[in-house]
C-alpha cells in the first residue's frame, strides 16, 4: 500500500490529467457543434431520429431540419462524436481514479471540504452524462456539461485546493458519507437536467421564431427536437429529485444527531429547502396548463441556480453552522 502522501500526490496528478482530457473532449464537442451549426448546403442531417411522442406533438412543432430522415450521417461528424465520447470516458476514468486516490490518502470518504466536494460533484455530473449518453441522444449537452466540469475542476485545483487530511470532529460521521454522497449524485444529475433544460429553452425559442416553416438556422435550430430535450430534462429531474429529497432528510437526521435539532433554518438548510421547493414547483408546473414547457424550464434552472448558490454562496459569503467545513 502506497503512503498517504504518495496517494495524495497521485490524486492531484490524476485530477490535473483529467482536466486536460476534459478540455480536449470539450473542444471535440465544440468542434462538432460548430460544424453542425454552419448553415451550408452540405449540412449534416439530424443526428438522431426524432421521437415525436404524444407530448412532443402538442408541445413543439418540429422544424423540417429536425424531421430529416436519420439515414445518412456525415462520417466526419460521427467520428468527431466518437472521439469526444472516448475522450470524455477517458477523462472520467482519470477523474474517478483521482477521487478514489484522494479518499484512500485521507482514509475517509473523499468529500469533506469544498475542493473534494467539487471534484466528486463534477465526477457525478460526468457520470450522469455518460449514463444518459448510452441511452439517449444527449451528445448536444456534451459541450456544456464538459465546459462546466472543466471550469469547476479548474477552480477547484486553483482556488479551493485543500491538502488531504482528517476532518474536524463534527464531520466524523457516517451521515457525512450518506448525506453528502446523495447531494453529490443529485447535483450530478441536476446538471444534466439543467443542461437539457437550457438547450430545450433555446430550441423552443428557435422553433417559435420559426413558425413560418422555414428551416431554423444556427446552433439552436440544429439541436434535438424540443420535445426530446424536454423529456430528457424531465427524466433527469424525476431521478434527481427523490435523491435530493433523501439528501435533505439525511442531513436533517445528521443535524439532529450533531446539534440536537433536525431543522434550524441554518443558511445551508434554508438553501437546500429553497432548491427542493423550486424543483417541486418545476415538477408541478410540468403538469399545469400554461406553465408546462417554458415557465417550468425556468423553474428548473432557478432550482439549479439555488443548488449552486447553496454550495458557493453559502459556503463563502454567509456564516452559519456549515461554515466549519472550510474552503
Amino acid at each position: 500500500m502506497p503512503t498517504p502522501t504518495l496517494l495524495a500526490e497521485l490524486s492531484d496528478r490524476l485530477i490535473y490529467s483529467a482536466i486536460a482530457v476534459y478540455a480536449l473532449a470539450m473542444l471535440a464537442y465544440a468542434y462538432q457543434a460548430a460544424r453542425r451549426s454552419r448553415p451550408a448546403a452540405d449540412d449534416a442531417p439530424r443526428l438522431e431520429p426524432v421521437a415525436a411522442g404524444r407530448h412532443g406533438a402538442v408541445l413543439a412543432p418540429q422544424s423540417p431540419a429536425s424531421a430529416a430522415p436519420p439515414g445518412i450521417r456525415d462520417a466526419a461528424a460521427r467520428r468527431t462524436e466518437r472521439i469526444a465520447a472516448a475522450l470524455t470516458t477517458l477523462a472520467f476514468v482519470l477523474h474517478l481514479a483521482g477521487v478514489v486516490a484522494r479518499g484512500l490518502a485521507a482514509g475517509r470518504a473523499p468529500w469533506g471540504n469544498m475542493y473534494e466536494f467539487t471534484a466528486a460533484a463534477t465526477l457525478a455530473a460526468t457520470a450522469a452524462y455518460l449514463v444518459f449518453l448510452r441511452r439517449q441522444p444527449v451528445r448536444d449537452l456534451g459541450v456544456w456539461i464538459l465546459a462546466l466540469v472543466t471550469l469547476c475542476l479548474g477552480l477547484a485545483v486553483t482556488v479551493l485546493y485543500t491538502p488531504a487530511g482528517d476532518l474536524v470532529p463534527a464531520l466524523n460521521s457516517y451521515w457525512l458519507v450518506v448525506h453528502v454522497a446523495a447531494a453529490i449524485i443529485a447535483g450530478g444529475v441536476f446538471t444534466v437536467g439543467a443542461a437539457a433544460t437550457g438547450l430545450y429553452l433555446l430550441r423552443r425559442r428557435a422553433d417559435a421564431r420559426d413558425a413560418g416553416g422555414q428551416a431554423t438556422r444556427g446552433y439552436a435550430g440544429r439541436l434535438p427536437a424540443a420535445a426530446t430535450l424536454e423529456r430528457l430534462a424531465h427524466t433527469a429531474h424525476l431521478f434527481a429529485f427523490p435523491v435530493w429529497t433523501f439528501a435533505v432528510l439525511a442531513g436533517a437526521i445528521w443535524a439532529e444527531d450533531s446539534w440536537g435539532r433536525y431543522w434550524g433554518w441554518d443558511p445551508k438548510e434554508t438553501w437546500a429547502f429553497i432548491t427542493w421547493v423550486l424543483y417541486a414547483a418545476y415538477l408541478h408546473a410540468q403538469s399545469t396548463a400554461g406553465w408546462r414547457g417554458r415557465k417550468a424550464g425556468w423553474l428548473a434552472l432557478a432550482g439549479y441556480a439555488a443548488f449552486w448558490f447553496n454550495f458557493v454562496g453559502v459556503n463563502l459569503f454567509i456564516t452559519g453552522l456549515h461554515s466549519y467545513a472550510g474552503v
Partner: protein
Amino acid sequence: MPPRPTGQGLRAWGRWAWRTLTSMRTAVLLLLALALAAVPGSLLPQRGVAFDPGAVTRFVADNPVVGPWLDRLGFFEVYSSPWFAAIYLLLMVSMTGCVLPRAARLWRSTRAEPPRAPTNLARLDGHRRTTVAAERAQVLQAAASHLRARRFRVVVDDDSVRAEKGYLREAGNLVFHLSLLVLLFGVAIGSLFGFEGRVIVVEGASFTNTRLQYDEFTPGPLTDAEGLSPFSVTLDDFTARFETAGPQRGSARDFQADLTVLRTPGGAAEKVTVEVNHPLQVEGTKMFLTGHGYAPVVSVTDGRGQTVFSGPVVFVPFDGNLSSEGVIKVPDGQPTQLGFEGFFLPTASVDPAAGPRSLYPDLVDPQLLLTAYTGDLGLGDGAPQSVFRLDKTNLSQVMDGDEPFARALRPGESMTLPDGQGTLTFESVSRFANFQIAHDPGKELSLVAAVALLLGLTVSLAVRRRRVWVRVTAAAGGGGATVEAASYALTRREPVPGELSSLLAALPGAEPAGNGAAPHDRED
C-alpha cells in the same frame, strides 16, 4: 384559473375561490412564493437561528433606517413570521384540497375496470399491428395471461383485452403529500412542547437538568419547564486532540467529554463518554457536545491577605487557536472589590499588530494576560450582568506608573497589585465543555413522516401508470388473426419501452422477434 362565477351568490364565489386555491396553478405559484420568502432569512441575521445572538441587534444598530422597518415586517424572524406562515399554510390547504379528491378518485378507480379500447387504436402511441397464426380466442387468452403475469388488471372482452397497471403511482403521490402534513404536525409538536438550552460545564463541575442551571433556555409556548427529566451530569474529564503538523495544523480532530451521569436523582452513577455526533440520551432529552474552551484556575487574596476567590473561570474562545477572553470578578475583596480583564492563550504569543494571540489550540505555553480594576463591580443592585463583561461605570483601572497595570502569568505564577490591593495566582488550567441540551417530542413523528414522504415520492415518480389494449380480429380469408396493440400513459412519462414488443412476441403463432411489422421500433 377556473372561470369566474357568473352568478352573484356568495356560494358561487366561494366555490370559485376554493377551486382556484386548490388548482395546480395556485400550488405552483405558492411553491414559488415559498422559495422566495425563504431567501431573506438566509441573508439577514435571524433571532431564532442564533449561533450569534447579538447579530440582529448589531444589524439594526448598523442600519438605523431600514433596520427597524425590517424588524417590524418580521424579516429577523422570517420563519416564524405571519407572512411566511401564511404561505405555507395556504400551500397545505391548497394541497389537501387537491389531494383528497384525488384520493377519492383513486379509491373509485381501483375498484373500476380498465376502460374499453378506443375504436381507433392506431391513433395511440406505439400502436402495432401484426398477424399471428392462431385462433382469436386463443390469442386473447394468451395476451390476457401475459398481462396478468405482469400484474396488470385485465378484462377480456369479445374482441379485445383491456389492461391497466400502476395504481401504486397515485397511492405514492397521496402518501407523499399527506406525509407533508404529518411532517408539519411533527414540527409543530416539537416547537410547542420541546425546548433547547445551552450550558457550560467546567471539568469537575456538575449540571442538573433544571431550568435555573441553564445558561440559556428556550422553551416552546407549551413546554412544561418545571417537569424536565431530572438527570444530572458531572464532567470528569475533557480531552481534545488537534492536528499537530501539516497545513491543517491546529484543526480539531477529537473531542471527548467523560461524564458521570445520574439518570434519576439518587440513582446509580454511570460513566458515559459524549463526543461530537454522539450525544448522551436520557429519556427523550439529548445532551450534545458542541464546543469547548479553557477555564484558568485562579485564586485571589485581597488587601487584607484573605483568600476571597478560588476556582476556575470560563474564558470564551474567539478564534480557531482558542485565543480566549474573559473577566474575573472578586466581589468579596476588601477594602475594595477587584475585577480582572484579559486574555487566556493556550500557546501564547504577542503579535505586534494584532495583539495577544494563541498560535495553537492545545496547551503548549499557556499564559494569562490580565489588567486589573478596583472599585464597585456593580453587582450589589441586583441588576443582571454578563459574567463575561466588567461593568466599568464605577471601576477604575489599576495603573503602573503611567501605563495600565498588566501582567502575563504562566501556571504557578502570581501578580501583586500596586499598593497591596491584592494578589492573583494563576494556579492551573481546566477545560470546559459547551453542551446543547434539546428535547423534541415531535421528532419521532417527523421521522416517520419523512420516511413515508421519501417512499411515497419515489414510488410516485418511478411507477408509470398506463393502459394497454389488444384487439384481435380474425384475418380475412381465415387462418390466423390480426392483432393490434397500443398503450396509453396516464402520466407524463411514456409507457415502458419494449412492453408491447414482449407482449406481441408472447402470442401464440407470433413470428420470431426481430421481424415485427412494427412501424415504431421504440415505444417512445
